[in-house]
């Protein structure tokens, strides 16, 4: 039996280690371990709740704004603050821009190389590539000359040895199935997406200030002035700028991203049957336009699907969320009992092997992640969970988008319970999000036109107006999935703060009953052609868009291997 170790597996900063046992060319058991302690909760204790978002923004490097967003909602929920519609719309516009940028980056720069062989691109015939591209989409950059140029650029990079982020350990792997022309087209779009993302994310600079960490969040609203006719605030000119960026997003998503996902998927039909896992899906729902309680106003529906049963969406009650620590490096009194996040404790107690080590002791504690459960069950979160919950809840626009894609690909809805299902759901929700961006911007314009310039509700800014004790829940759907912040406030200070992030839901370890987490379950049964180069495992793990303890950036100059594959 081969024991394959991938450590770390994340392409975005973070620390995740996967151990997979392979027997007879298939994974028989998998273990997912977060190898770094993330203790934001300890830092927040005793701080002013109004500043929590500044700290939580630093939890994760790639999703800074989502933690700020969720944190201010948690405090507002605790203190009963209603925010003005303009503030809610601006928060949603920031979040939506983040989604669209993240999903495109995920596909091209974090996941595509699991499906696309860069060396294939060098063998492609540019003329045939041009024909292929033009058969898929009206995107203008599709001439023979264009693809010749891209091919020359890639060759230059390969020859110079500086392929940089296009480097992959798995070039020429037998599990790659695209024809060279599709490889070249995808690589061209990979490069275009880098340029594109740089332009479109300027929406954040307009709404959030120039610093890469957004500056304009504020408990009670936003700290960005809205005035149609003033300079240096959110005015007509800047709204026009945002509208243009949304158009730019739509062109690329509809003409490049979605067609590419469909094209790539068509060469990997078996991946609609691999990687499902438990088929339990959870979505908090989000983009609530400031409304915390009326679920009908949420852009994404809230609910739970159990065991792939799309006929029954279970209503979500956040009080049924717990975190277990049976296999996690934590301790507290009564450690066998899972706790709701309001009562959650973060007391680290490392019992694992001393690094560097060959294998985890998976019978005991083996992860810095806790095991979140809903009503005792593991739940997958993310784009697939959101699209399935919305689809099964009768969200008409989502049904239209999903059914359209299923018809085109000749698939049943059940095919979505898979690795490719996650990839497809991410692309389809990007289309859905574009519609929402247009709606939110139009709503913001209409408000401003009607003279409503309110952006902040300061009624409860002064702590003397607060109750002696309060508790709140801030929820969001981050690009990677359901994100919750739970806060308890006592004597104007943070008494307890717990963040349950999407990757904890997905990458958490087994619970006290030995039930595996979503990553672990989804890897079971995955075929592995070459245990030395477990490309298939990366496909499924990357389909979740993992990002854990997302915050260590050490430039490693020693040449240390960062992806380790061992067969024992």
């Amino acid at each position, binding site marked *: 039996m081969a024991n394959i170790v991938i450590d770390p597996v994340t392409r975005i900063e973070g620390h995740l280690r996967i151990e997979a046992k392979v027997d007879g060319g298939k994974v028989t058991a998998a273990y997912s371990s977060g190898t770094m302690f993330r203790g934001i909760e300890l830092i927040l204790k005793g701080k002013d709740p109004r500043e929590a978002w500044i700290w939580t923004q630093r939890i994760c490097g790639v999703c800074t704004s989502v933690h700020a967003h969720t944190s201010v909602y948690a405090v507002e929920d605790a203190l009963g603050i209603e925010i003005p519609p303009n503030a809610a719309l601006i928060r949603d516009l920031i979040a939506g821009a983040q989604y669209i940028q993240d999903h495109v980056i995920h596909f091209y720069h974090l996941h595509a190389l699991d499906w696309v062989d860069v060396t294939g691109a060098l063998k492609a015939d540019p003329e045939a590539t041009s024909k292929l591209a033009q058969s898929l989409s009206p995107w203008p950059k599709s001439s023979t000359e264009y693809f010749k140029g891209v091919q020359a650029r890639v060759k230059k990079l390969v020859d110079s040895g500086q392929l*940089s982020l296009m480097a992959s350990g798995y070039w020429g792997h037998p599990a790659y199935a695209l024809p060279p022309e599709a490889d070249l087209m995808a690589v061209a779009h990979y490069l275009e997406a880098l340029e594109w993302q740089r332009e479109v994310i300027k929406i954040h600079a307009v709404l959030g200030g120039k610093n890469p960490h957004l500056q304009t969040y504020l408990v009670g609203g936003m700290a960005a002035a809205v005035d149609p006719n003033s300079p240096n605030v959110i005015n007509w000119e800047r709204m026009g700028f945002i509208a243009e960026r949304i158009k730019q997003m739509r062109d690329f998503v509809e003409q490049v991203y979605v067609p590419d996902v469909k094209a790539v998927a068509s060469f990997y039909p078996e991946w609609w049957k691999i990687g499902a896992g438990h088929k339990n899906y959870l979505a908090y729902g989000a983009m609530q336009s400031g409304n915390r309680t009326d679920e009908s106003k949420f852009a994404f529906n809230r609910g739970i699907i159990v065991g792939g049963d799309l006929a029954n969406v279970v209503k979500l009650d956040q009080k049924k969320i717990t975190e277990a620590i049976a296999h996690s490096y934590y301790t507290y009194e009564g450690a066998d009992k899972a706790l709701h996040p309001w009562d959650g404790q973060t007391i680290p107690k490392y019992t694992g092997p001393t690094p560097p080590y060959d294998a985890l002791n998976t019978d005991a504690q083996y992860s810095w992640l806790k095991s979140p459960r809903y009503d005792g069950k593991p739940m997958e979160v993310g784009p697939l969970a959101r699209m399935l919950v919305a689809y099964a809840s009768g969200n008409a626009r989502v049904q239209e988008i999903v059914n359209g894609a299923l018809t085109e690909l000749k698939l049943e809805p059940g095919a979505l319970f898979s690795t490719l299902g996650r990839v497809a759901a991410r692309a389809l929700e990007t289309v859905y999000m574009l519609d929402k961006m247009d709606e939110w911007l139009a709503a913001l314009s209409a408000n401003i036109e009607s003279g409503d310039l309110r952006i902040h509700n300061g009624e409860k800014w002064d702590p003397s107006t607060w109750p002696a004790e309060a508790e709140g829940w801030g929820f969001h759907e981050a690009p990677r999935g359901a994100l919750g912040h739970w806060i308890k406030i006592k004597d104007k200070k943070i008494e307890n703060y717990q963040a349950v992030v999407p990757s904890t839901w997905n990458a958490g370890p087994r619970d006290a009953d030995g039930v595996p987490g979503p990553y672990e379950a989804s890897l079971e049964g995955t075929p592995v052609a070459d245990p030395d180069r477990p490309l298939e495992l990366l496909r499924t793990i990357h389909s979740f868009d993992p990002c854990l303890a997302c915050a*260590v950036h050490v430039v*490693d100059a020693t040449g240390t291997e960062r992806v380790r594959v061992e067969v024992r």
Partner: protein
Amino acid sequence: MTDRRYGVLGLGNRLEQDEALGALVIEKLRTDASLLGSLPAPDTVELIDGGTVGLGLMPYLTGLDGLLVVDVINNNREPGDLIDLDGVDVIRKDVVMSVHDLGAGELLGALYVMEQWPRRVRVIGLEPLVIGLGLDLTPPVAAAFPGLIQELLRYLATWQREDAAAG
């Protein structure tokens, strides 16, 4: 001369002790005006608190005449030792080390494949002692901090003088 632009990009997470190095360098340069003020052309320097943002930082880095990337750097040296690397070498090594991490190496790599490489790139930092939960630098890294600031200023001053001489 006036349209020259230089950048100091501080990377790292403020919540992880020595990992905060890049962010603290930016803060120091922002709050103590005498530091940049000692340069021939202080106004041409942009300070970027990159945190751990990755590719999202690209808009801030294109078209620079010189870029200093400040981060903790693991190089098996003594904690607090100054490490100074050519940006091109960081990308080349990263090909070997990191298949797909979207970190500093990839950010630079993206500039490279997009043919928007700044005219000069140095990656400068200190060997860390501890990267783990906490808000303060460890003593050896804190002790080396002023020397690091001086080294950054030396680079900026040299580049500015070279460019001024070139006209």
